[in-house]
């Protein structure tokens, strides 16, 4: 960068503290970065790294108090915008700098039509009257790729899919032709196939308008596909910065290197031979209709949440079930443990039908089959100590362990999952997400299970933590001879871990194959799309050209 030109937005030496009764902590310290017209700056970091705080400061979105900008300033075209008055800020936000958020559903008001909300952007800034605003809104919707915008402008947010909602959010952000777009984890809540389309939309708008984009993400693949320059944050500090290609190819800082090593590597592995061990779980024609009274026949028009799914899990094997949201994969997990009633089908555990078990047999089954849930923040009772959480299975199944040995066994289990024995007296909120998931695994192991069903067990975790938890699960599989059913929306994650992969779509089983074969020779289009959905690094693609796969997807799905 030449020093002579004034950057569009520059953050200089920013330090932000948050004060609370417990003292104050420094969210970001001495952070500087800038962005020029037409380029994308990616701020990469894991949760708690301060990446969102630095961008909120640009928009003046930090609540003060409790927040406090201790040092530093923020410049827009050389003008200091750190301490604007409320009126100046209201005129500035939206027209000069706009922002889009992670969760488009919670940032769109559910009781107003999207047309009303879009028009409000214009009227709030006093740009034009309502009729003109409506005409412009239709134009914006067309630009962000909402099909048939004249009709859909009168729809409500819930009538759109997640990807379309994010398109509408982007539309609201660019409505006033801002020069800078700040995108805070814009695709994190979206399915992989939709993610690529939204990213492509942002690139397209950037090409057309010369928009400067500041993108905040924890996802390395998304970062690589968008970034011209990259800033890596860790614990409130910038640990590395530079041209995206340089940072990815030759990370200098230890933290960046650790982060990069968490990327699932795509080296081909040997295809594994079919396991011939005895089957532990046989699932036959499992079907679930929601809202159907017990015993009633489904009408032909009804669509099942899960339809006719069959598979066999052998001892020591791991089956990955992969699908996007709404594919019925979590319903399968709940049905396998009888947490949700089943419409029809059989689940045979060592030859015995789980769905026909009486209370006593079911209790015995729930000792041998365990589940690890998606969200480690809500899957443990916040009022219980770790000791009580892990020892609860022994209260429910008194024959596992005499009470005198509980302390030692809890300490042993905590050690097994990589925590310390003294953690037993703490409560869940004192742990990070990854540590909580370890506690959840320790609780599952407390029953000495044979089968563990992991329902999106690592999805809520940062990438580097994801790999740690998966390594832990793989290690336990070797040491304890466990079998897993591993449910996820993220196909690359299962590549190293699962023996077989089932691909689900809209409640149906699309494809089932040995893992490596599935990645190399996907039989179905849908699987191929999932395998190729991961964003490719920007420098590997011709600049200015949309990727064929994504362009095709945009045309086909249109949203």
């Amino acid at each position, binding site marked *: 960068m030449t020093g002579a030109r004034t950057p569009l937005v520059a953050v200089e030496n920013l330090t932000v503290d948050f004060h609370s009764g*417990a*003292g104050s902590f420094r969210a970001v310290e001495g952070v500087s970065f800038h962005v020029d017209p037409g380029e994308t700056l990616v701020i990469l970091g894991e949760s708690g790294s301060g990446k969102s*705080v630095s961008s909120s400061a640009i928009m003046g979105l930090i609540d003060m108090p409790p927040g406090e900008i201790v040092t530093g300033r923020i410049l827009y075209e050389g003008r200091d915008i750190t301490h604007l008055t409320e009126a100046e800020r209201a005129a500035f936000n939206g027209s000069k700098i706009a922002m889009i958020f992670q969760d488009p559903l919670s940032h769109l008001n559910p009781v107003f039509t999207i047309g009303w909300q879009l028009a409000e952007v214009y009227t709030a800034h006093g740009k034009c009257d309502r009729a003109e605003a409506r005409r412009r809104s239709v134009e914006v919707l067309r630009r962000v790729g909402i099909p048939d915008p004249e009709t859909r402008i009168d729809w409500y947010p819930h009538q759109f899919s997640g990807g379309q909602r994010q398109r509408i959010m982007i539309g609201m952000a660019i409505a006033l032709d801002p020069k800078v777009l700040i995108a805070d984890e814009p695709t994190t809540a979206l399915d992989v196939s939709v993610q690529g389309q939204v990213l492509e939309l942002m690139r397209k708008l950037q090409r057309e308008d010369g928009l400067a984009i500041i993108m905040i993400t924890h996802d390395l693949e998304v970062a690589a596909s968008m970034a011209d320059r990259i800033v890596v944050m860790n614990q409130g500090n910038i640990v590395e910065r530079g041209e995206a290609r340089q940072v990815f190819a030759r990370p200098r800082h230890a933290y960046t290197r650790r982060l990069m090593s968490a990327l699932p590597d795509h080296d081909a592995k040997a295809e594994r031979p079919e396991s011939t061990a005895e089957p532990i779980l046989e699932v036959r024609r499992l079907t679930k209709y929601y809202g159907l009274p017990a015993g009633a026949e489904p009408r032909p028009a009804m669509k099942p949440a899960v339809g006719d799914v069959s598979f066999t899990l052998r001892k020591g094997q791991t089956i990955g079930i992969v699908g996007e949201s709404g594919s019925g994969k979590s319903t399968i997990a*709940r049905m396998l443990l009888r947490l949700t009633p089943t419409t029809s089908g059989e689940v045979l555990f060592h030859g015995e039908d789980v769905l026909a078990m009486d209370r006593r047999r079911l209790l015995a089954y*729930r000792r041998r089959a365990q589940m690890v849930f*998606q969200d480690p923040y809500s899957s443990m009772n916040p*009022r219980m100590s770790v000791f009580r959480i892990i020892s609860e299975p022994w209260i429910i199944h008194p024959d596992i362990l005499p009470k005198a040995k509980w302390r030692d066994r809890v300490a042993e289990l905590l050690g097994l999952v990589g925590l310390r024995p003294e953690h037993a007296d703490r409560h869940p909120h004192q742990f990070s997400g990854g540590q909580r998931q370890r506690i959840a695994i320790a609780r599952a192991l407390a*029953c000495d299970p044979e089968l563990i069903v992991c329902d999106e067990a690592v999805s809520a975790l940062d990438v580097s933590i994801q790999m740690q938890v998966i390594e832990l699960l793989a290690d336990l599989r070797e040491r304890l001879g466990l079998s897993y059913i591993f449910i996820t929306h993220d196909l690359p994650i299962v590549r190293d871990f699962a023996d077989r992969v089932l691909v689900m779509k809209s409640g149906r089983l699309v494809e089932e194959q040995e893992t490596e074969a599935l990645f190399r020779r996907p039989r179905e289009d849908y699987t191929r799309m999932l395998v190729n959905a991961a964003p490719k690094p920007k420098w590997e693609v011709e600049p200015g050209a949309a990727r064929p796969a994504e362009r095709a997807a945009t045309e086909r799905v249109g949203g």
Partner: protein
Amino acid sequence: MTPEITLAPPKRKRAPSAPLLLLRDPMTALALGYLILIALVAILGPMFMADLAAKPNFRARNLAPFTLEQGWAFVLGADTLGRSLLARLVVAARTTLGIAVCAVMCSLVLGGLLGLVAGYGRGWLSAAILRVTDIVMSFPSLLLALIVLYSLGPSVLNLVIVLAVTRIPIYLRTTRAEVLEVRQRMFVSAAEALGASDTRIIFRHIAPIVIPTLLTIGAIDFATVVLAESSLSFLGLGVQAPAFTWGSMVATGRGYLANAWWIAFWPGLAILLTTLSLNILSSWWRTYSDPHQRWRLELPRGGRGTKEKRS
């Protein structure tokens, strides 16, 4: 950005125990002290002061407070018949607290239990509970109390029953609403997957989260019950003379507010302080029982606002 709580350093001192924490908070300690005092007075006081409270003393009619010419017993003044207000307060403490505590406890426990069933269950029982609650709620509670007490005859037991029944819907509805939310949380599914029985899930997992809310409502409701009891007494359907309560003392004193304010003031103050203390104590306990919030109480005094770099 989600603020993540980092682990305390491994060599953390053991957290101070509950009584110690409670005493460190001056308001809470004061509230607890007052409640203990009132409880002792209610238990022991009437033994010494029952006669004094009933004995008319015409030389002390409408005696103003803070004079010692009739002796220390008249320091808070006297009522229209010249009876010592201090003695009457002490004697009334037993009846007042007895009725209110019984009524609040009954409605809290019953309402809480029924609410747990109504919220957790899906069958006809929970529907039936809700419909009965709707019926109770749709009656003006005072009218209901009047009808019941008129037909059953006024007595302390009937009074407690009536007060409890009319307050049950509040606890029931609150409990049910919270249970409906809590049962959707993942840890309930997790407990179920471990094989936990319904009883265990209700009492070990859901109830501990609901109880602090109920206690807070109970503390606030205490005042309502005391006042409801006094209005029933005023209508002649509550506590029967010669027995009396703080509420009925306020009701009698109401007519003399212009020339002898102290007759209604002291019992009113007693009700206020009791309710306030209960409130302070219940909110302290609410914080203490939530592991997520407990640090607020465990902070060393004067240590607030110290800078601490998150690492």
